[in-house]
């Protein structure tokens, strides 16, 4: 992991957002990932999305597990606190962090091994608990840091660099998340920023568990012919469900869409997501149909991308467990300690 600071020099006309910040204010030190790594594109997309929606960097907490994917929080949002935890365990760290302070935006970064192999249990339970967070899986279908082993998300039959076909079935985390009650499920491709960035913005605005399975090729160990996670394969087999335009809360909607060609999704902070239908029959508000459609397209060998499912009516963990509005980490001794008189009464109950 690098801590080499990037030059702060930038073009005088580098655009500033509503907070007066440039994209540079959302970046981190230089990446030490391989040149051309899909994960660097994910980092860049996070920088772009956060800058464009004018979120204060220090209001974000970035979390990760272990692996190439999980190194990336070092490379974006250097003004945000981050937690590079242990392998497959980021969801529990995020759960506790969120329980302590509901007011921050939590962006979790994980990988296919981190989430679907070693961390599958924790991933599933974070989804079930409807934790309010963005959970990105940088999915390259391989273990990069240990040089190219299969993960639980490596597709059946996909060839390793050595030429072996994967004999085991892959776990589809997007479909799994759907079944476990995730309220925002998307799949995208790190090589398609125009699709990925609006989805990221919407995921941040969404209240609830927002998972984005982002195909992110590993240029060193999994970008060869026969791999189903290579740049070429994903480009050739990508079938986009929809194309999203994210309109932040404060902006006026100016674009006109032909009736029936798009669907509006109002998000919790008042932002609107315009979904332009690309697949005629597809309805992203029906989890059962979405699950079926995902499996169907997978059988056809397609890589389905876009917003797969969204539900803006579901409560998040804090609503379910009914915590006070003020973040728990801001309560002081007067809020928390019942005092000596109460303790005397409690003592009486033990007599």
């Amino acid at each position: 992991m690098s801590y080499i600071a990037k030059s702060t020099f930038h073009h005088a006309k580098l655009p500033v957002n509503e907070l007066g910040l440039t994209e540079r204010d959302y970046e981190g030190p230089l990446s030490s990932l391989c040149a051309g790594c899909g994960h660097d594109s994910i980092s860049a997309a996070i920088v772009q999305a956060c800058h464009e929606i004018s979120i204060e960097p220090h209001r974000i907490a970035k979390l990760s597990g272990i692996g190439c994917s999980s190194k990336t929080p070092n490379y974006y949002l250097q003004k945000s606190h981050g937690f590079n935890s242990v392998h497959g365990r980021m969801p529990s760290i995020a759960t506790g962090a969120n329980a302590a302070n509901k007011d921050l935006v939590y962006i979790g970064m994980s990988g296919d091994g981190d989430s679907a192999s070693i961390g599958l249990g924790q991933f599933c339970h974070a989804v079930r608990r409807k934790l309010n967070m963005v959970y990105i899986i940088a999915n390259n279908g391989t273990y990069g840091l240990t040089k190219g082993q299969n993960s639980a998300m490596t597709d059946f039959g996909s060839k390793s660099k050595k030429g072996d076909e994967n004999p085991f079935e892959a776990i589809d985390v997007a479909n799994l998340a759907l079944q476990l009650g995730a309220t925002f499920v998307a799949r995208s491709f790190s090589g398609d920023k125009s699709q990925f960035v609006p989805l990221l913005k919407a995921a941040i605005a969404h209240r609830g568990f927002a998972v984005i399975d982002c195909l992110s090729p590993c240029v060193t160990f999994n970008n060869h012919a026969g791999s189903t996670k290579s740049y070429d394969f994903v480009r050739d087999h990508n079938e986009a469900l929809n194309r999203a335009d994210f309109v932040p809360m404060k902006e006026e909607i100016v674009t006109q869409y032909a009736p029936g060609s798009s669907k509006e999704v109002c998000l919790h902070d008042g932002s609107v997501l315009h979904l332009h239908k690309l697949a005629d029959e597809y309805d992203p508000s029906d989890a059962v149909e979405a699950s079926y459609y995902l499996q169907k397209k997978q059988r056809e060998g397609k890589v389905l991308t876009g917003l797969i499912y969204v539900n803006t009516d579901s409560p998040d963990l804090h609503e379910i467990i009914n915590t006070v509005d003020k973040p728990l980490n801001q309560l002081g001794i007067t809020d928390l300690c019942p005092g000596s008189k109460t303790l005397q009464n409690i003592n009486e109950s033990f007599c």
Partner: protein
Amino acid sequence: MRVVQEVNSNSKLNEFVIKFANVNGTGSASANHLFAKSIFRMGVPVSPRNIFPSNIQGLPTWYEVRVSEKGYLGRKEIVDIMVAMNPQSFQSDVDSVEPGGYLLYDSTMPLDLSKYREDIHWIGIPITEICIREFSNPKQRQLFKNIVYVGALVALLKMNFSIVKNLVKDQFSGKEKLITPNVFALELGYQWVKENVSVPFSIRVEQSNKLDNKILVDGNTAAGLGCVYGGATVAAWYPITPSTSLVESYDKYCERLRIDPGSGKKKFAIVQAEDELAALGMVIGASWNGARAFTATSGPGVSLMTEFLGLAYFAEVPVVLFNVQRGGPSTGMPTRTQQSDLLACAYASHGDTKHILLFPANPTECFELAVAAFDIAERFQTPVITLSDLELGMNDWTTDKLEWDDEEQYDRGKVLSKDDLDSLDNWGRYNDVDGDGIGYRTYPGVHPDKGAFLIRGTSHDAFARYSERGDDYVEGMERLQRKFATAAAALPVPVIRSARQQSLYGVIYYGTTDPAMDEALDLLAEKDIELDAMRIRAFPFREAVFAFMEHHTRVFVVEQNRDGQMRTLLINEGDINPAKLTSVCHFDGTPITAQFIADSISLSLEELIPSVQPSKSRVSKKGA
């Protein structure tokens, strides 16, 4: 009814052990508790113990009550009165009664007493018959059997009946319609004895006044309450015996005391995790984010948590963890007690790791050390593991009242505010600016431009930047060592009980060995064996612990595990000559007894004194 010829001549006033043998899941627990608490209300020290199987319904379960005017509350391995309500265990229950003792049994079905021992008093009460006659509801017929025998005991032991009846009223306040039938059932047993039993009963309970400022409570309840008072807002846990009731206590008192009156919303969050590992992850996440958070578990949970304990140690995140120990290894004896997780906790996780341990010895200390654990964890930015056990966590203890000073403030440790950060130019998370090994923390979201860093379990320099440089690593690891030394001097001091005259011999013990040790020291003193005693309350050890070992030629280390884990820890941390420390180990899953300790120590000293043999001696038995 059969009476032994020689009635036990020693009349036992307020000094005896009664044991109830029941079938799990038949409602005996609340009746037995009623009995024990009635004695407590009569001002007599009492220590009840549940001896239960890992089962919900059907297997044998026992409830043992030691009544001691003298205040000896450790387990005593004799039975003066047996209430034998379980046919499955009947024969062994009969066998366990002291000669001259009493056995109460249900005589509804005729029992051929000629088949059984003659040296105890047999008191048959037709309990089932009474209940069938007096109650129509089948459930009541079952449940009130237990209350009937309590009523019978009240008469036999000449207890103050109105105290027992008032206790029933208190216990069912809010469920008034249950009071009348319960009191009625008590009367049934009471009257039956009055009308039918003419045997002289040599054991009595008499009103006393030994319990000023005392309460009757279990350690888990007290520890859960300590978490409320200590300001914990996030509890993450996974159910496991014997720790479950700790989080349930926190939940219960939070529901009562931590609800915002305006909105009805909760000033706490409890998350039941998918496993213990995740539970600790949640605690780490919440602590990192500035909340006081805790989890409670037992040995198997600690095994899972070791991964995260290493992270919290190395990344320096406060953790409050309660380990209510049970019999190990593996699943071990889930419903039996032991002190066998010391080493697993002291050095939990791979690499060079060490953790702060606290050893409460009674429910009052469970409360106090729970509160203290949050201050210590935040002051030293590291895990604090409180080692209780099943004996303490799940049994009611006669213990000092819980106290709180309203002037108390939480010690949140070194945390930088926004203003602090504004005035600092060169802050580094792990910079040891004060020389005590403790850096300054920041919470996420505190400042728009300053104080953010990426916390990690990978090696890092003083500025929290990833570093594989040897000198950065060594500097960090040595600072952690320095921090540990700082902690040692700030942890709870050991409790010392000095011998009446100067002694060459010392004894070190901790946790629930405490009540048995008090009694054992008295038993030894009766044989003119005088020892200085030290009860350790925390790890890392304070200087006083090493000085104690220095000042004695021989030190017994009494503990409830096979391997003498405290002894190992003392030798390892204090560079002590192993020959100086003699292990006294009790580990059959039952609480250690005074007799066992006294016998072991006097035997060892007998061997020791004539020969003055310094070789490592070891007293270790599978129970007594």
